[in-house]
C-alpha cells in the first residue's frame, strides 16, 4: 500500500475537516429551526466552560466518555466493533452496587478499589460471551453485542425490581449508599487544599479515567500484547501466520474493552447517583463510539474528544434551558453527524485530499 498522505494530514487535517463539517451541518440544522447558531454556540460554551459549576459537569460527563471511548478504541485496534459498551456499563453498575451496598459501613478507601475491580469484572464478563461466540463460533460480534445491550437492560430492570428495591418503595432503585461508599467529589478534594469550587458531580474518577487512558496507551503501543492486537487488527490472516492466536486476541481485547466500559459505572453509580437506578448509563456507551472515531482510537484523541462531548452534553443541557426551541436532542444530532462524518463518510474528505496531495507532490518532483 502506497502512502499518499503525510502523517499530519492523516492525524490532524482530515479529522479536523470532518469535525468541522459535522458542526457546520449541525449549524444548518439550528438555522433551519429558526434559531441563531452563533448564539447557540455561545450559550453552550458559556454553560459548559464558563463557571466552575458548569465545568464540573463537563468533566463529569467527559469522565464517562473517556471510559466508553477507550473501550471502543481498544476493540477498534483489533478491528472489532464493540457496540455493547452500553450494556457492559449497565451490568458493571450492578457489580459496583453489590460492593457499595455491602461495604458502605467501612471507608471509601477500601470500597473504591474493590468497586473498581467489581466494575471491571462485571463489564468484562458481559463482553466475554459475545467475544467467545465470535472467537469460537464465528457469531458476528456487532449483532451479539447489540443483543446483549437489550438483554442487559432487561436484566437491570429485573435486578432492580427483585433484588435491590427497597421494601415498600415503588421506584426501581437500590437504597442510598452509606458514607463508606461515597467517593470524594472534586470540589471536596479542592477543599482539602483550600481551593473553593462550586459543587458538581465531577469526582475522583477523573483521575481513574486519566490512569486508564495512560494504561491503554502503554498497552497498545508499548507491550507485546498491544503489538499483537494491532497486528491482528491490521490483518488477521497475517497475524495467524505470525503465530498469533485469534481466539486469544479476540477474548483478551474484548475483556479489556468490557472492563473499560464497566469502569464508567464508578463515575456515575458511585460518584454521582450514590445508588443504583436506571439512569446509570443513559447512552454514554454509544457516545463512546463517536469519541473513539473522533479521537482516532488514540488515548490522547479519546480524551480530547471526550472533553468535546462533555462540553456538548453540559452545554446542550444549558441550551435546552435557555432556548427551549432547541431540545437536548440537538446533542444526539451532533453526535450522529460526528459519527457520520468521521466514521462512515470519512472517505468523502479523504479521497479529494489524497488527490490534492498527489498532485502537489507530482508538481514538486
Amino acid at each position, binding site marked *: 500500500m502506497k502512502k499518499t498522505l503525510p502523517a499530519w494530514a492523516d492525524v490532524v487535517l482530515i479529522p479536523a475537516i470532518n469535525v468541522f463539517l459535522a458542526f457546520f451541518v449541525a449549524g444548518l*440544522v439550528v438555522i433551519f429551526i429558526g434559531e441563531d447558531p452563533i448564539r447557540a454556540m455561545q450559550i453552550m460554551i458559556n454553560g459548559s466552560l464558563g463557571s466552575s459549576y458548569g465545568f464540573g459537569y463537563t468533566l463529569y460527563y467527559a469522565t464517562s466518555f473517556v471510559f466508553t471511548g477507550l473501550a471502543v478504541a481498544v476493540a477498534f485496534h483489533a478491528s472489532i466493533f464493540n457496540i455493547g459498551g452500553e450494556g457492559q456499563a449497565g451490568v458493571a453498575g450492578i457489580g459496583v452496587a453489590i460492593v457499595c451496598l455491602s461495604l458502605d459501613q467501612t471507608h471509601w478507601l477500601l470500597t473504591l478499589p474493590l468497586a473498581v475491580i467489581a466494575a471491571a469484572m462485571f463489564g468484562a464478563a458481559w463482553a466475554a460471551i459475545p467475544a467467545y461466540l465470535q472467537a469460537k463460533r464465528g457469531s458476528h460480534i456487532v*449483532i451479539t453485542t447489540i443483543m446483549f445491550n*437489550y438483554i442487559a437492560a432487561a436484566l437491570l430492570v429485573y435486578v432492580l425490581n427483585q433484588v435491590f428495591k427497597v421494601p415498600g418503595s415503588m421506584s426501581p432503585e437500590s437504597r442510598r449508599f452509606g458514607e463508606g461508599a461515597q467517593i470524594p467529589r472534586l470540589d471536596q478534594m479542592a477543599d482539602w487544599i483550600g481551593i473553593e469550587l462550586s459543587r458538581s458531580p465531577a469526582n475522583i474518577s477523573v483521575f481513574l479515567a486519566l490512569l486508564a487512558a495512560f494504561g491503554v496507551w502503554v498497552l497498545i503501543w508499548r507491550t507485546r500484547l498491544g503489538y499483537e492486537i494491532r497486528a491482528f487488527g491490521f490483518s488477521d490472516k497475517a497475524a495467524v501466520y505470525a503465530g498469533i492466536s485469534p481466539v486469544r486476541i479476540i477474548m483478551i481485547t474484548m475483556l479489556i474493552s468490557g472492563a473499560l466500559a464497566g469502569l464508567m459505572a464508578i463515575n456515575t453509580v458511585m460518584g454521582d447517583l450514590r445508588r443504583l437506578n436506571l439512569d446509570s448509563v443513559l447512552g454514554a456507551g454509544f457516545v463512546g463510539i463517536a469519541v473513539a472515531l473522533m479521537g482516532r482510537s488514540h488515548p490522547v484523541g479519546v480524551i480530547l474528544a471526550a472533553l468535546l462531548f462533555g462540553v456538548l452534553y453540559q452545554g446542550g443541557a444549558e441550551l435546552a434551558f435557555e432556548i427551549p426551541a432547541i431540545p437536548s436532542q*440537538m446533542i444526539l444530532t451532533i*453526535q450522529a453527524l460526528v*459519527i457520520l462524518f468521521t466514521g*462512515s*463518510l*470519512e472517505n468523502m474528505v479523504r479521497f479529494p485530499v489524497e488527490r490534492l496531495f498527489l498532485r502537489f507532490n507530482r508538481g514538486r518532483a
Partner: protein
Amino acid sequence: MDLAELFQLFDSTMRNATPLLLACLAGLFSERAGIFDIGLEGKMLAAAFASAGVAAWAAAPYVADPFPGQISGLGLGWTAAWLGVMAGIAASMAMALLHGFASITLRGNQLISGVAINFLAAGVTVLVGEALFSMGGQTPQLTGGARFIGLTLPLADTIGAIPVIGPFYRDVLSGQVILVYIALLMVPLTAWILFSTRFGLRLRAVGENPGAVDTAGISVTRQRYAAVLICGVLCGLAGAYLSMGTSAAGFVKDMTAGRGFIALAALIFAKWKPYPALWACLLFGLLEAIGSKYQNVDVGAFVIPVQFMQALPYILTVVILAGFIGKATPPKAGGQPYVKER
C-alpha cells in the same frame, strides 16, 4: 385461558408483527445484496415522524387566507393518510440513500453508518417536530382521514359464526389496517422477486460474490443501490404503520423502541429467508403481546418474569447466531465494500 382471550392475543400478535415484518424484509433486501443495515431502527423512526407529520398537515383544515403565523393545512380526506405514507417512504429512502452513499460509493464502514443513521433519526425527528409543532417532539393526534382504521374483511360476520376458525377469521385476520395486509403480501412478493426474477438473482449474487456479477458486465453499484432503496421503501411502510396504523395515532419520540433491532434479530433468526422471516416476526410479535398482556407468567413451578419475555427475542437470536440450533450464515460478501479490480 379461553378461546376469545387467545384470539385477542393473536390479534395483538398480528399488530406487533407488522412493523417487524416490514423492517425485517427491508433488511433482507439490503443484506442479501451485501449491505449490512443496522440502521433499520433509524429509518423506521424517520418514516414514522414524516408520515405522521405530513398526514396531520394534509388533514388539517384548509385556510384560504391565513393570518401571520397560522399554517394552512390541505384539508384532505382519506388521501391524507396516503400522502403521509408517501412522505414516510421518502424520508426513509433519503436515509437509505445516505447509507448507500456512505457504504457503496464511499466504501465506508456500513455498521458505523447504520449507527449514525439511528442517532440522526432520533435527534432530527424531535428537533424538527419541536420546530414545527412545539409539542415536545410529538406530532398532533391524527384523526379521521389522517390515520388508518381497521378494515372488515368480506363476510367477517357470516364466517365468524363458524366455531373456532370463524372467530379466528373475524377477530384476528379481519379488522386490521391495510398496512398489515400489505406487509403479509410482501412476504410472497419478496420471495418471488428474490428467487424467481433476474433482478433477484443478481441481487443475491452481489451479496455473495460481487466480483462474478461485475465480470458478467452488471453494475454492482447499481444493483446494491437498488437493494438499499427497496430497503428504504419497506422501512418507510414500517414507520408509517407505527405512527398511523396503531393506537398511538401520531408520532412520539423514540416510538420505534428497539423494533429495528428486533427486526434485525428476526432476520438472523430466519436465516435471511422471506417465509421464515414471517414466522420469526410472528413469534417475536407473540412474545411482545404476552409480555404486555401478562406481567409475570406463572407456569406452576416457577414464575417467568416479564423482563425475561422482553429479552427472549434477543436471547434466541444470540443462540441462533452461536449455531447451537442450526447455523445462521450471512451472505458471504456482507459488509464488504466492493472495489473494482484495476
